[in-house]
């Protein structure tokens, strides 16, 4: 071997391969060795092979050519090697061109699926050498033009594909291109690593994608066709056809791989536009032909279909966009119409408790702006309307228990809707509460009715009901109580009713009573319930006192009528104006004894008999020797006792003897003489009403199958009109000091304040109990000015000053 060879030059290495490769060829004409032959040629970079190379590359490769080369190489194997090294080895001026041709050929073969004959090692080395010898630029531009020309060919074949095969062809070519690109990058890796970063060129893989985009996807003939085809498939799927989702996914994935802007411009934007048009049309169609419930079902189905579509073959980021389109076109644009739809809209659903439809509406409307507030507004006005009807219906006012029960039912119904359909949304709960607060206070008698409802429950309604159920009922009552603006009115009534329950011993359960008082206490504070608690204490101490009385005076009393006295603290109880009556002498004796006893044990107290609140059990014997025990009120007892001394008493006689107030007396006579089955007295003339000229007789023929007969007082559970006025007046009276106290408290802190601010502050302080009327506040201020708690400012008449 010639010694002037530089081992670093490629010639020697290539020559070595050449000899190895050549020696592998035993039979020149064997076609099977064509590949080996190619290797010889491609590996060769010495001048000696120049001739072959030119022939080889100048003419299109044919079998004959190859055979020719094979013969040449095998024949001249020894000779040319020696010959080669006779010349000085200089860098081949056509070296770059030749090496590039090899690589270009390889790229062709890769695209033609003919890569099995390529040697990775050799191609990598050639690419490496080109970069190493500063031919990177040539390699890069060569790559761009070769790849471009292949892609142009591919574009033609995709364009030529017919109809439905278009997408399939595109997908197939895309897969092939990706594989080819991977292989090309494999052999050009060295360029990718060194030449491309230092020259700020596009890396091979990205370059391949860009070229695909520019030469395939963005060509006139393919771009619109691709877009239309994709959109057509989506539309067909929407109309119920089954499409090849895998194909769709792959093609869409291709657009995403080409960059998010390609996906957006070439597919997503037109897709969204088309969808908007489609759903605009469809919503129009549905709204004309469906009722609200069906429409919502269809909208929900469409929405779910779109979400599913995104998960199957679109970019996940498209989900928000497409659902926005559906929401806008199918829900937002039609929601007012849907809600107000005749016979099937929101009001209808609410009335018929259509939880599924309501839930669907909630879930769909929640997605669009103002959707829920629309539902809320319609629902609020519906509840207010029905509530208003409920509280103002004169029929309902007849039965307070039923009235309150209906309120509770209405509340339960709406609570259930909010719970089942509206996801317990706070917004709806608040709307419900404000609606109830609104209409309950439309009726001034609501506080009274609620108290009556409680009274009814605590008298009998809760008999035999478990403790938990009692709690539930009480909680519901408390909820209604919270809606009341005039809580003090409720308190007033509640006190009356409680007093009656306690005194007549009619309360079902003391636990329930106490539990409710506790609830009122947590709601309104200690002040609100202290008197109510005082009433319980009085009852308890009364029992003790009575025991003491009988223990001390038992023998003295003998067989006189037994007495049970409730000592009520003045102020704790709703006392009416003291209306005394003349008690029968036997009773009076016992009462006086008790009075002496009590005042003897307690210093400095005053006892007043509340005869209007008492009751009595008297034994009566009728004509046939029939004995009955009559349970009557104190007044009735007084009247009946008169008949022990004489029959046929006129109204005036009775009135004079007992001195019972006219109204009470009439009421009491009515219940003794006019109620069937309880008429222990007989009246002449007969009639329902008591007249001043009537005469009363002991009814000998009275008969009852019960031994004990309870003679109730004819008294409406509800208050009569004048009583109502009276209670109202008392409430107003009670409010005065409260308002004054509030004004003084505020003025003491602020010293100077104008009128409007005082009214606002007072209202704020008192609204937990009642809503004070501004006119009343003004009067109270004037009263305070008169009493010199306040004075008007001398310059500004609207300003008040506090006078310490």
């Amino acid at each position, binding site marked *: 071997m010639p010694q002037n060879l530089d081992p670093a030059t490629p010639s020697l290495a290539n020559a070595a391969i050449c000899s190895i490769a050549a020696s592998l060829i035993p039979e020149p004409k064997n076609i099977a060795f064509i590949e080996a032959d190619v290797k010889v040629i491609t590996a060769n970079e010495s001048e000696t092979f120049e001739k072959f190379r030119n022939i080889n590359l100048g003419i299109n490769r044919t079998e004959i050519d190859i055979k020719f080369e094979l013969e040449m190489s095998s024949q001249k194997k020894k000779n040319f090697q020696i010959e080669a090294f006779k010349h000085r080895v200089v860098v081949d001026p056509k070296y770059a061109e030749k090496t590039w041709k090899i690589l270009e050929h390889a790229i062709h073969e890769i695209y033609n699926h003919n890569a099995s004959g390529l*040697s*990775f090692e050799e191609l990598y080395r050639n690419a490496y050498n080109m970069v190493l010898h500063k031919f990177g630029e040539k390699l890069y531009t060569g790559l761009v033009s070769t790849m471009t020309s292949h892609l142009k060919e591919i574009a033609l074949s995709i364009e030529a594909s017919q109809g439905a095969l278009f997408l399939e062809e595109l997908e197939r070519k895309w897969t092939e291109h990706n594989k080819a690109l991977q292989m090309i990058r494999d052999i050009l*890796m060295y360029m990718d690593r060194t030449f491309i970063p230092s020259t700020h060129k596009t890396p091979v893989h990205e370059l391949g994608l860009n070229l695909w985009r520019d030469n395939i996807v963005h060509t006139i003939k393919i771009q619109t066709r691709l877009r239309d085809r994709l959109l057509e498939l989506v539309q067909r799927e929407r109309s119920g056809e089954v499409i090849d989702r895998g194909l769709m996914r792959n093609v869409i994935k291709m657009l995403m791989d080409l960059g998010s802007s390609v996906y957006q411009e070439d597919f997503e934007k037109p897709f969204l536009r088309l969808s908007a048009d489609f759903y605009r049309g469809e919503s129009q169609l549905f709204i004309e032909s469906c009722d609200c419930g069906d429409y919502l079902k269809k909208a929900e189905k469409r929405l779910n279909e779109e979400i599913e579509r995104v998960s199957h073959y679109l970019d996940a980021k498209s989900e928000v966009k497409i659902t926005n389109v559906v929401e806008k076109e199918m829900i937002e644009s039609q929601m007012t119409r849907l809600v107000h739809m005749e016979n099937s809209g929101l009001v209808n659903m609410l009335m018929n408790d259509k939880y599924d439809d309501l839930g669907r509406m909630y879930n769909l409307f929640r997605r669009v702006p103002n959707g829920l507030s629309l539902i809320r507004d319609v629902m609020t006005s519906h509840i207010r309307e029905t509530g208003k009807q409920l509280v103002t219906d004169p029929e309902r006012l007849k039965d307070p228990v039923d009235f309150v029960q209906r309120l509770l039912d209405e509340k339960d119904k709406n609570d259930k809707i909010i719970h089942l359909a509206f996801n317990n949304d706070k917004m709806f709960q608040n709307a419900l509460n404000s609606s109830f607060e609104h209409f309950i206070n439309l009726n001034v008698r609501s506080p009274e009715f609620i108290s009556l409802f409680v009274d009814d429950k605590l008298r009998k309604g809760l008999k035999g009901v478990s403790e938990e159920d009692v709690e539930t009922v009480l909680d519901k009552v408390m909820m209604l109580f919270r809606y009341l603006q005039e809580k003090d009115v409720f308190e007033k009534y509640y006190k009356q009713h409680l007093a009656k329950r306690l005194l007549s011993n009619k309360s079902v359960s003391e636990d329930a009573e106490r539990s409710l008082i506790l609830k009122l206490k947590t709601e309104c504070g200690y002040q609100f319930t202290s008197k109510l608690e005082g009433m319980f204490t009085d009852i308890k101490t009364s029992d003790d006192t009575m025991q003491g009385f009988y223990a001390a005076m038992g023998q003295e009393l003998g067989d006189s009528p037994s007495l049970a006295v409730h000592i009520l603290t003045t102020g704790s109880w709703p006392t009416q104006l003291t209306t005394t009556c003349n008690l029968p002498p036997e009773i009076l004796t016992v009462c006086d004894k008790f009075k002496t006893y009590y005042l003897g044990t307690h210093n400095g107290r005053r006892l007043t008999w509340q005869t209007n609140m008492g009751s009595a059990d008297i034994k009566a014997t009728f004509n046939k020797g029939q004995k009955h025990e009559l349970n009557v009120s104190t007044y009735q007892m007084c009247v009946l006792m008169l008949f022990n001394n004489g029959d046929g008493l006129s109204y005036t006689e009775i009135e004079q003897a007992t001195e019972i107030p006219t109204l009470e007396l009439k009421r009491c006579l009515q219940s003794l003489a006019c109620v069937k089955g309880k008429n222990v007295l007989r009246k002449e003339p007969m009639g329902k009403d008591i007249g001043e000229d009537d005469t009363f007789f002991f009814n000998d023929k009275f008969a009852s199958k019960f031994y004990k007969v309870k003679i109730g007082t004819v008294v409406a559970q509800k208050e009569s009109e004048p009583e109502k006025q009276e209670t109202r007046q008392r409430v107003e009276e009670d409010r005065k000091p409260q308002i004054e106290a509030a004004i003084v408290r505020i003025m003491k802190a602020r010293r100077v304040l104008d009128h409007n601010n005082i009214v606002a502050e007072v209202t704020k302080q008192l609204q937990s109990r009642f809503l004070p009327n501004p006119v009343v506040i003004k009067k109270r201020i004037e009263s305070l000015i008169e009493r010199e708690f306040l004075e008007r400012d001398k310059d500004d008449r609207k300003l008040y000053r506090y006078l310490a």
Partner: protein
Amino acid sequence: MAIQKDRVKFNVGGKIFETTATTLAIAGRDSYFASMFDENWDLQLNPSGDYFIDRNPDCFSILLDLLRTGELYIPPHVPEKLLYREALFYGLMGHVRTAKWGSFDGNRLQPLTSITGRAPGDGTAIRASPEGGCCVAHGSMVHIYDWMLSEQHPINLDYQRVNDACWVGPVDPTGLVISTCERLGRGQGGMGLFNTTTGELRHKFSVTHEGVVKSYTAGALSFNDSYNLFSSCKGRSNEYGIGVWDQNTGQQVDFFYEPPGWSLGDADKLQWLNGSNCLLVATLFPRKDNCYISLLDFRSKSMVWSWSDMWSPANGDDRRVRDAIAMEENGSICVVNEFEDLGFMDLRRESSSVRWSSRSRLMKGKMPDEPCYPKLALHEGQLFSSMNDCISVFCGSDWVLTSRLRRSFGGSICDFSIGGDRLFALHSEENVFDIWETPPPSIV
């Protein structure tokens, strides 16, 4: 084929190697081996049952060992450059780089080598690149060295004096900004962004005052995270201040004019503070008679913190600040005087004064013939200070001296720089610089 499935036989330049596909897989997808064994390639075995690679067998053996063990051992007879070239061929450069030296630790540094330049001594600055290479500014030339320490094409600034250089950073590893002096009468000077591989000028940063482009002298440089470039600028008509440019577009985005009685345009050092969004500007003795250190907030166009020794009573020459560095984590600025005494100032307090730490170093009277002013650097909680021919490393909350780096050649250290997990120190008497690196963590 009698070879078991996992076993792979190579013939590299005539030498047979046998290994496994598992070992080769460690090379990663971007390597020669991964591509070679990709199913796309219909690999052809030689009749002897191996794959031929036309490369240097000695290097292959080292690289194969690297894949097998993760450790790099270069036998003395193999030149490093040769190995690097082969690693680049196989796509194993990342592996070599990682195996060669570990992450930076000032206390474990070991000298790698010293490189001598062609020009005489007295270099201006040395700057470590994020990749582990460096550049040395010298007169009007900037010499570039890659991480393998082979010199690239130098950048010649047409006889304009280079003042500072600054690597753009990881986003553009080849980008280098160079600031130069203005050349009177030609409108040249200022700053440019160069590609260090090709030497091409990518942007020239110009300064505009009242709509007119003016020539200027660019001094110290700094970058921030939002790709802004800062430089101290001196224009001819007293247009002194700090210029701000967008690194990507090359456009000037802001200019902070020097307030009267202060110094910004002459600054020796700029440092961007990420936490407080401020720029530290330090002009130091002897460039000016007094030292001026300030923090600039560009959003409010205000100086949010400042210190100058013209306010403090002169106490002789021994306490002149020669370099300053802000340490955001400690909320302080560290300064150093020519005797390498460290001083600290509180960043959180206005009108702070220097608290000198009492380090008893017997420096006075022992100055070398050609003293260099001390310089400071901070790297992950370690403070570095150069003085004469050695660099001190300080650690911990009270900055205890923990290590000393010294090589006895080239005279005093005039500049040093830390980057790419390496420390570069440039000597002043002779044109030579040292490279220090942390050995990789031991495998066992």
